């Protein structure tokens, strides 16, 4: 009863806190920009009344607040004399994003490690029967691992760009960091759009199984069985559905902002680029935290889960224990009254040549 509760608290806590922190940071950083642009002059005058203002005060206020002038030079934002937003963005990245996200990700890893050590893995009740049922088809597994491999690569290259200067500069020196960062940037920009295709592929294969079903809210409110008792659910429980939809939402945000960032040839101005970067980095941190939780749960959290995505087949007792409605459906299909019992493994193997 306590182990399930802890698991839920860890996962949801990290998810929710990452989202909340991210939203707060975003609102605060944008709030600063608005405050600077709007009320700098009058506010200052109210505090320190000046009888004879500087003769150029109007000119420099206009110059600072993104009045767009004309210029003979062509280029993005060439007519903007002073771009104040850059300081807010730089401060967001250096003072909020880099330090805080490091703590968030470390905290997630630590919480999961503590949970894992204290609580251990949920075993299959009744042990393994040795009989298996198919859970993920070959196509589904290929799509999942394609997305997973891309995610890991993008995560590593992205984190190099984010934390490289903090963590690697002293280790490998300036040229070494330049080399690693150059490789990471090239890799990140090249594989980013591929992640979009992976998302579409996974969406197409899994969306119909992740729609709302009666019992999902109940499953969530009872913490997936953490608070005791047995919970029924279909092929995918509400936690897995949440993972699916958050992956799609985060993925859409991250691919969209990534495309804006890596195709500057459409004349995007700096404000759009800064906003895209903020979205991209915040979503990336939340996404990484969520996937760390997902990897932990899927490998260590519950025994017998990983084989669902590696071999595609799960033990019958695992199905009965964790997805009883789905188990009944699958087993019921196979055990029609008149037909003899079918050896499911041989049936599944023979199916290999066809796209399933």
């Amino acid at each position, binding site marked *: 009863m306590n182990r399930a509760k802890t698991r839920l608290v860890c996962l949801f806590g990290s998810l929710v806190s990452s989202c909340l922190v991210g939203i707060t940071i975003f609102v605060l950083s944008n709030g600063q920009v608005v405050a600077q642009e709007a009320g700098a002059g009058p506010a200052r005058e109210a505090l320190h009344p000046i009888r*004879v*203002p*500087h*003769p*150029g*005060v*109007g*000119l420099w*206020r*206009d*110059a600072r607040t993104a*009045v767009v*002038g*004309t*210029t*003979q*030079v062509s*280029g*993005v*934002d*060439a*007519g*903007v*004399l*002073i*771009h*104040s937003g*850059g*300081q807010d*963005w*730089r401060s967001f*990245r*250096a003072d909020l994003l880099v330090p805080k996200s490091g703590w968030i990700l470390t905290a997630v890893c630590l919480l999961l490690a503590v949970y894992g050590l204290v609580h251990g893995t949920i075993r299959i009740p009744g042990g393994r029967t040795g009989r298996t049922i198919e859970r993920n088809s070959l196509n589904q597994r290929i799509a999942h691992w394609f997305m997973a491999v891309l995610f890991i690569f993008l995560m590593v290259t992205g984190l190099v*760009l*984010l934390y*490289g*200067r903090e963590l690697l*500069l002293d280790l490998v020196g*300036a*040229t070494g*960091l*330049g080399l690693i*960062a*150059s490789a990471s*940037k090239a890799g990140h*920009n*090249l594989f980013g759009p591929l992640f979009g295709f992976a998302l579409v592929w996974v969406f197409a294969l899994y969306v119909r199984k992740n729609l709302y079903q009666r019992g999902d809210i109940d499953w969530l409110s009872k913490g997936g069985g953490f608070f005791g008792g047995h919970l029924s659910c279909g092929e995918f429980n509400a936690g897995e559905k949440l993972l699916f939809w958050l992956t799609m939402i985060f993925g859409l945000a991250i691919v969209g902002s990534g495309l804006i*960032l*890596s*195709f*500057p*040839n459409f004349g995007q101005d*700096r404000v759009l*680029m*800064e906003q895209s*970067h903020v979205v991209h980095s915040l979503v990336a941190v939340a996404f990484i935290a969520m996937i760390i939780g997902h990897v932990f749960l899927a490998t260590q959290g519950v025994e017998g889960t990983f084989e669902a995505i590696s071999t595609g087949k799960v033990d019958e007792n695992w199905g009965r224990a964790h997805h009883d409605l789905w188990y009944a459906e699958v087993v019921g299909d196979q055990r029609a009254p008149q037909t003899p019992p079918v050896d499911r493994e041989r049936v599944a193997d023979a199916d290999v040549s066809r796209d399933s």
Partner: protein
Amino acid sequence: MARMKFLCDAERCIECNSCVTACKNEHDIPWGVNRRRVVTINDGSPGERSISVACMHCSDAPCASVCPVDCFYQTEDGVVLHDKDICIGCGYCFYACPFGAPQFPNTSSFGSRGKMDKCTFCSGGPEQDSSSDEVRKYGRNRMAEGKLPICAEMCATKALLGGDGDEVSNIYRERITYRGSASSLAYGWGVAYGKKGVKKGYSQ
């Protein structure tokens, strides 16, 4: 130690773009890259002002602070320079810079901007002074020859001042004192167009 600064006197700038042209010529800068540009505010209306802007060589440079590979450095004269060999062309310095000084030669797909290029205060780069590598990558190193930046030297009206910050501000302060304040302008728009010619808060 002298701290090098630029100052563009908006009252004197006539938008001739000589500074822009001189810079491009001196350093053989390719198409699309503009280390210096002249921005005109309120073009065509009374109170029009032009200002020449390039890298301001900030004491606490935001570009240096945000660079993910830390390729910026500051010389003893306070000039902010960077190492093109390490630069990965990510564009962060361009987002952070208030003046839009960093420029990129390509704006092509998949973020392949190329190496960042910007005003060097005619001080070249990390290569050996006046070597052919330095000239090819960063342009001429006038400071090593004891000269000031070509843009300031070329300015037709001496609107653009470049050099030791103390000297530059002394010159500018002298000008302001000579010109007088907004209400008692001895010259400029107010003289030519009367009160209408001076947009509120736009003198000096």
